[in-house]
């Protein structure tokens, strides 16, 4: 009996197992849950783009005026600075030395001018006056001798030549007195105007040279061009600051009171974006962090898109229209340089009307 039914029973069991295999195999592959929900557009018709947050002043890559080694960095990341505040100082020792030289030169020029102006030297005058008095005395002596000789009436007692000699001696004495007097006058008159003018010019020149060195020194101090916040500091004391456009700017500065967001829109969709239309930005990784955007402007020049991979070989794909929007950060955890998913209220796509969406309940 058992034998007879063994095969049919086995067959039944086999079929049963087959059915079980089928049922077991039907189980659906489980669907993975995303760790964050992707951003969803709040508009009927919209254009999507990736946005990059930047300061409302755009991000200012502060550069040095002249190249040199940095002596001191006066701000830290996050410092709020006012226009004109010093940011960092370059090595100025050589120029300080030069400044000392120029200061000395100025002093020399000034002293020369002072000396020029303080002429005549009082100690010189008594000597010159003495020389005048001496010439006067000498002249009086000459005159006396001449008189004495003229008063001799006997022509034999005195020769004609002697008489004349005495006359010439008086003339010479007068001339000497005149010379001594004029020298006294010259001395008393002090410095010549033209000489003073030259000295004054020399002082002015020395002053100008010093000011030039001072300006050079001032140029070694890099100052904030606007009121804003220091976003990035990539230069430290002791490092060499280069001039010219750098791949990593020395310092990044920007006004972050209101933030701007620069949205890349594919050139194929550019025609759909209109100025003044609203937009919404979502933080990546959490679509609950969102902010309404206010239109600022179009960038009039369409640029090649950079895929922001961070790779050294930046890849250029297509060209994108950049649209700039504005938002206030408030309490939102959004930062300059962050990427966001942006949806812009836009013109509808041109899709033939026959195939318009059959949307339930809409």
């Amino acid at each position: 009996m058992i034998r007879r039914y063994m095969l049919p029973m086995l067959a039944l069991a086999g079929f049963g197992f087959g059915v079980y295999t089928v049922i077991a195999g039907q189980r659906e592959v489980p669907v993975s849950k995303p760790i964050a929900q992707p951003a969803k557009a709040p508009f009927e018709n919209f254009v999507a783009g990736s946005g990059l947050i930047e300061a409302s002043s755009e991000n200012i890559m502060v550069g040095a005026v002249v190249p040199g080694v940095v002596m001191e960095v006066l701000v830290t990341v996050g410092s709020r600075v006012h226009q004109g505040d010093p940011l960092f100082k370059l090595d100025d020792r050589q120029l300080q030395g030069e400044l000392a030289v120029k200061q000395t030169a100025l002093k020399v020029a000034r002293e020369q001018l002072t000396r020029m102006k303080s002429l005549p030297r009082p100690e010189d005058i008594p000597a010159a006056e003495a020389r005048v008095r001496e010439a006067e005395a000498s002249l009086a002596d000459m005159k006396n001798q001449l008189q004495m000789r003229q008063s001799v009436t006997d022509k034999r007692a005195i020769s004609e030549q002697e008489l004349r000699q005495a006359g010439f001696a008086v003339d010479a004495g007068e001339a000497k007195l005149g010379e001594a007097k004029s020298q006294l006058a010259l001395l008393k008159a002090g410095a010549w105007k033209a000489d003073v003018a030259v000295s004054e010019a020399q002082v002015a020149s020395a002053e100008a040279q010093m000011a030039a060195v001072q300006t050079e020194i001032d140029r070694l101090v890099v100052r904030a061009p606007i009121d804003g916040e220091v976003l990035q500091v990539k230069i430290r004391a002791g490092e060499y600051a280069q001039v010219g456009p750098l791949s990593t700017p020395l310092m990044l500065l920007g006004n972050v009171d209101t933030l701007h967001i620069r949205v890349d829109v594919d050139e194929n969709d550019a025609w759909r974006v209109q100025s003044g239309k609203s937009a919404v930005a979502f933080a990546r990784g959490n679509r609950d962090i969102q902010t309404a955007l206010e239109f600022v402007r179009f960038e009039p020049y369409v640029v090649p898109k950079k895929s922001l991979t961070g790779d050294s070989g930046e890849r250029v794909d297509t060209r994108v229209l950049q649209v700039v929007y504005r938002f206030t950060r408030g309490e939102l955890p959004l930062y300059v340089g962050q990427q966001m998913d942006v949806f812009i209220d836009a013109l509808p796509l041109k899709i033939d009307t026959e195939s318009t969406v059959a949307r339930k309940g809409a």
Partner: protein
Amino acid sequence: MNFVAIKMLMGDRAKYLGIVTGLTFASLLITQQAAIFVGVMQRTYGLITDIGQPDIWVMDPRVQYVDDPKPVNTTELYRVRGIPGVEWAVPMFRNMIRARLRTGAFQQCLVVGIDDATLVGGPAQMTEGRLADLRRNEGVIINVAGATTRLATPGPDGKSVPLRVGDSLEINDHRAIVVGLCETTRTFQSQPVVYTTFSRAMSFAPFERKLMNYVLVKAQPGVDQLELCRRIREHTDLSAYTRDEFKWISMVYYLKYTGIPLNFGIAVVLGFIVGAAIAGQTFHNFTQDNLRYFGALKAMGATTGMLLRMILLQSLTVGAIGYGLGVGAASVIGALAKDTELSFFMPWQLLLISAGTVLLICMFAATISMVKVIRLEPAIVFKS
């Protein structure tokens, strides 16, 4: 009468077993080969099966099947996002990249880069670690099958040590840290699957101008998916398929351009022929041997129709037993091969097809026997 027929069938044990064996093997061969074929075909779209969230796959129009990714511009992602009816769209990277193991050996891996922010398209069944760990620096998630086989390295005692969480490997000269292990549907080429974020996958990838392979799209609730596909195609010049369409396209590619269906088809046909030959031959012999009894029955007044019904019952009985045993044996093979590389999948349609085939063999065997019985003279009882 039916009882007599069964008695007659089981009475001749050798022939009974012979017929059942023939039918069992036919049924086993057909079911098992077809199940493996279906399993292999299912693997051709393993990646699509695993990614259940998106409804629509958008790709380059020249993509022929899922393992043949052609890169597109990353800006296409935003164009797709801007199409009405799209709830969301995320990028996906999928490519073969060479990994270097600790031992210095190289292994091609299937690197899947999923959206950084949402990790849509990630593995559903994590065996170790969490999907969110992908956010960690240099993190990758590897499928268990890959970690224990091709990416395993020989340890100091010569045994192979599987790749574990925390281990590092080199993907195209970039360091990667295993932060999790996952279970995935096997793919056709069975390469280890390395999940990572989209941006990290791009840095792993060899230099190429375009690096995005797929855009995964979720349709808004209530939007007709086929219509949305059409709209995406029209607006972006890319191809867009629903999940099922893309699965079908991938499978059809393999059916069309590989010898796989032919191979399995030959095996199935052989099973059919062998089964038909053995069962038909033995059943015919069995009827031949029992002609005397049929003659006696006829002589006792049984009509030809009655006799034919008996034969039909006999053949259906052996058919049912053979079918049951064959299907059972095939299922057992499938169950045993569950954790191996063998692909085995039995849809319910396969049970019907197998049953139909066995029925066909039985009918064939019964028909050739029936001819004998119809021509039977009752006098045969008295012969010899």
